[in-house]
């Protein structure tokens, strides 16, 4: 599946009610490590599990007064519209969000 098609598929999954773990956000390094470990162990190549564990949303989440869109995240590749976190490696949209956001 090409990246545009995969991006559309993800958008559809998020729009049609896939319940993801949006909260709690990864507030500390330990919480980040715990979520990343879960992605490695529980998700693997399973798309839905990746979306659920990372807490994907098709809109920007604001946590502690800070908007957390993909477009400002360090893992986001602007021109490819792609999440470069090795445990995710997914096409995304700039206004989406997940709880592994880091700036």
């Amino acid at each position: 599946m090409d990246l545009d098609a995969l991006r559309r598929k993800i958008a559809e999954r998020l729009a049609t009610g896939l319940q993801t773990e949006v909260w709690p956000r990864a507030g500390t390094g330990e919480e980040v490590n715990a979520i990343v470990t879960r992605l490695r162990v529980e998700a693997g190549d399973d798309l839905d599990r990746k979306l659920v564990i990372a807490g994907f949303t098709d809109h920007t989440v604001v946590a502690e007064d800070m908007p957390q869109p993909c477009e400002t995240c360090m893992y986001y590749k602007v021109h490819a519209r792609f999440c470069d976190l090795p445990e995710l490696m997914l096409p995304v949209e700039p206004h989406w969000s997940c709880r592994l956001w880091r700036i």
Partner: protein
Amino acid sequence: MANLLWLQGGACSGNTMSFLNAEEPSACDLVTDFGINILWQPSLGLELGDNVKTILQKCISGEIKLDIFVFEGTVVNAPNGTGEWNRFCGRPMKDWVKELSDAADFVVAIGDCATYGGIPAMAPNPSESVGLQFLKRAKGGSLGAGFKSRSGLPVINIPGCPAHPDWVTQILVAIATGRAGDLTLDEFHRPKTFFSSFTQTGCTRNMHFAYKVSTTAFGQRKGCLFYDLGCRGPMTHSPCNRILWNRHSSKTRAGMPCLGCTEPEFPFFDLNPGTVFKTQTVMGVPKDMPTGVDKVGYIKLTAAAKGMSPKWAEEDIFVV
């Protein structure tokens, strides 16, 4: 001719190994070109046992003029402040250090252990290790906050794990050739000529830092190591990317995050699991900002820079 004596305390000998790799000038150049007479050094000295002790005693008594006393490794105080865990020539090393420092014109601490305590002094510090004049950021150490050698200078600290060989030899040459007066030290007694700029200064990844493109795994040539892999280059004072290692590279150029080993707090976070090679964040924002940058400014700068990053910044431009 300047007499130099080099001793080791709680050390791994890494700074001696580094010193022996010096090139500009080399360890041999110190002797042949710059008039340094190495009285004794753990890896170079020919004397053993009582003959070493005699040299030390003559330095303390003044029979041999001690121009430069170099110390590598921590000053060990365990157990219970006695220093008995690190005996040398029949007595605790800490006692030799005190008396030799009082006798020397200049005292130079080489490496992070001798300067600030380094790895041996991290919690719970079972060896009760301290640096010569600091314990981490706190002034004092083994010789006390007010210590000054006969020249009037405090301990000259050349930190690093290890210190770059040329930092060591160039400072020794400056002292031996009567140019110690040109040395200006920062608040942690580091020569400013080496420790005013940052490790990031000269890093080949600076363009990725500017455009906020992150390295996400070891071995990648693209991306900045600060954002995810815990690189401390933007807040560590060292010339590692100006005076290159082995004359051609550095940690960050090779894809290895800077560990901040020239700063008093090294090793950061006491090497707790999950803190090494991982940028520590609070709600996604780095705990430790590049020096001089505040959180609000950092967030604004990041959003703007990322938004305008060029396509090439996201690719590996080093592929031929």
